[in-house]
């Protein structure tokens, strides 16, 4: 209250979730400069929130859950009921009774569920028969995320996810319906920045055109297109080469083209599904950096706001899908400790971005991985092995993924990239040809595909160490680049087969804290060994 209206909003003064168990309100005064429509947050003297229930809409949500859980039995009952009249009546009775029970249970669950803040801990009690209580120390809470489904939005409430370092996207405590004022109060008590973020923070938004572009180039499509093309070619081949097609055209003119049409239809449907899926997931996507946290909002039906402490962003991975790379586009994922097992959408930093804009955006939003702030020019030549000092030194004006400074596999490694892929193509082609002799054109086609994929993989492979950031890139159809602070690797390896040993080649791989690993195959052994030897952990402060 004492803060001037324009006073800087401050997040928790200690960014680390392990900053002790002190009473929370000492960590920051409640925000008085927000557009608070409800009564302002509790004064500092009150260390705790009184025990309270969720918003009553939680009862409806619980009831809906019960219905959803019972939906299979209901469908079975209805199906059985439709077979015989008497059972039909019984099914109707059961369905109505079940709905009543669901509502009653929902209300009972809502009454049984409370949360409170006591002794510097958030306590969540719930359960009708077996009472459960979850206790999370406020000091361990690194964010309180929100999600908002259609029903919650109708009532203007949020689902709160209380996150600690150990958890995934689903919080340690999930409060399914909390009013905004209450959510703000909880955040304030936990010493977290309250909603919303000031407009002057670095921000990135996915616009309407961007959203459509995301849908159009959805990664699933990269797999679908060749698949559909293959199916169409297959149909053409089977019916073309064996003469069946002519017969078919005579007998049933739609037979051959029917399959092609069907393949096309399947493709269109799948594409529409992928398109709609991307729209629903990424609509209204925005990233804001608020001090040392990223706030990511997304979703159409279900609005989600996730807070990620920058300290936990150890790396990013950049994917250039086959439909995106030709346009210089990529998508970027956060590699965050603790979120490793989450679905792709939960880890997205940029659903779609020009590769050329990556450095600028990183500097704004994830400065720990950008190179601009660094001071000394990078020593990209690692033949002699960079010293740890080099690793911590920076690159002036260098760009995270700029084309220069990359260490690539030598030319003599090319055939090693080609051979296994061509063999796989030949083998698949051979099996198909043996099974259906008329498919023989697939044999050279698949071998050629192997060559193309191999060349693509060869051209993608490489690594670069600049400004203490290590980038490793691999992949064929989709290029993947993992960019990590070199000092924060979880492990790194160098592997050699006997063939590689003879050719003085080696495969370098590394793992980041999300569990994602990147391997670059068939590199010159000397610089790879130098890289292997030079990498040292830098303790996180």
């Amino acid at each position: 209250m004492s803060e001037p209206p324009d006073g800087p909003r401050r997040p928790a003064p200690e960014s680390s979730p392990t900053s002790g168990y002190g009473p929370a309100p000492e960590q920051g005064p409640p925000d008085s400069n927000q557009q608070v429509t409800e009564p302002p947050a509790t004064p500092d003297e009150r260390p705790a929130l009184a025990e309270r229930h969720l918003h009553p809409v939680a009862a409806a949500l619980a009831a809906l859950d019960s219905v959803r859980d019972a939906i299979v039995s209901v469908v079975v009952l209805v199906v059985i009921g439709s077979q015989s009249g008497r059972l039909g009546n019984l099914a109707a009775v059961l369905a109505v009774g079940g709905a009543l029970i669901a509502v009653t249970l929902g209300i009972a669950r809502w009454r049984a569920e409370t949360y409170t803040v006591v002794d510097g801990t958030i306590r969540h009690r719930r359960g009708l028969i077996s009472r459960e209580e979850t206790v999370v120390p406020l000091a361990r809470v690194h964010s309180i995320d929100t999600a908002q489904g259609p029903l919650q939005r109708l009532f203007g409430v949020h689902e709160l996810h209380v996150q600690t370092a150990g958890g995934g996207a689903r919080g340690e405590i999930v409060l399914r319906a909390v009013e905004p004022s209450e959510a703000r109060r909880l955040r304030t008590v936990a010493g977290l920045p309250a909603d919303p973020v000031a407009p002057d923070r670095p921000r990135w938004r996915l616009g309407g055109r961007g959203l459509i572009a995301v849908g159009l180039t959805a990664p699933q499509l990269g797999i679908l297109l060749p698949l559909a093309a293959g199916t169409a070619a297959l149909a053409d081949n089977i019916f073309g080469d064996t003469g069946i097609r002519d017969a078919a055209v005579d007998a049933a003119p739609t037979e051959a083209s029917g399959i092609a049409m069907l393949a096309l239809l399947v493709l269109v449907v799948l594409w529409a599904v992928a398109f709609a899926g991307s729209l629903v997931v990424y609509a209204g996507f925005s990233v804001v950096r608020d001090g040392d946290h990223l706030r990511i909002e997304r979703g159409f039906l279900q609005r989600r706001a996730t807070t990620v402490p920058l300290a936990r962003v150890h790396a990013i991975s950049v994917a250039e899908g086959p439909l995106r790379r030709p346009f210089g586009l990529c998508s970027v994922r956060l590699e965050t400790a603790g979120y490793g097992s989450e679905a792709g959408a939960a880890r997205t930093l940029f659903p779609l971005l020009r590769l050329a804009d990556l450095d600028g955006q990183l500097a704004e939003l994830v400065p720990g991985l950008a190179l601009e702030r660094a001071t000394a020019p990078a020593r990209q030549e690692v033949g002699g092995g960079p010293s740890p000092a080099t690793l911590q030194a920076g690159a002036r004006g260098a760009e995270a993924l700029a084309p220069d400074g990359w260490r690539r596999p030598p030319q003599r490694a090319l055939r090693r990239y080609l051979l296994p892929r061509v063999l796989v193509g030949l083998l698949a082609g051979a099996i198909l040809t043996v099974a259906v002799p008329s498919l023989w054109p697939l044999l050279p086609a698949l071998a050629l595909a192997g060559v193309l994929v191999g060349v693509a993989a060869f051209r993608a492979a490489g690594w670069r160490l600049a400004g203490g950031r290590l980038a490793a890139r691999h992949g064929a159809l989709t290029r993947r680049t993992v960019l990590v602070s070199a000092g924060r690797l979880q492990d790194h390896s160098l592997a050699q087969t006997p063939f590689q040993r003879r050719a003085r080649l080696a495969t370098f791989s590394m793992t980041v804290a999300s569990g994602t690993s990147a391997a670059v195959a068939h590199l010159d052994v000397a610089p790879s060994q130098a890289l292997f030897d030079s990498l040292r952990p830098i303790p996180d402060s």
Partner: protein
Amino acid sequence: MNDVHPEPDQRLPTQARTLFAFQSLMAAAPLALLALGARSALAAAGAPDWTGIAVLALAAVAAVVLVAVEPRLRWRNWRYALRDEEIDLRRGVIVVTRTLIPTIRVQHVDTQRTWLSDRLGLRAVVIHTAGGSHRIPALHPDTATAIRDRIAELARRPDDV
């Protein structure tokens, strides 16, 4: 600090060969079934007798390599070293892989025992980082405990993940 990490020099105890051999044996069991199945299939298809015998001989050679040779090579190639700042592993029969795990990245360390490893007086040590886990498959129980405690001590320096 020297830029080059010395090669790891600690070997696994010799009993590890027996452990590896038993593990290979379990991998070889399906091979035997497969060979027997292939032989009866050949016989049923009316192929000459020698084809079936050749399949069995081939499987026998593979089994010998798998059970007698591979475990020894695996044991011979396994090296580890525990330094203050890193855990250094080198292993592999065909693909030789060397891995460095910074000790400050270690989240926790497990020792594991099975019925078989107990009979052989061995323990496995599993080193967990935020990115995954690494396993030293066979150690003397005393060594395993010592390594576990040592890593736990070294890893005590805080690492904020």
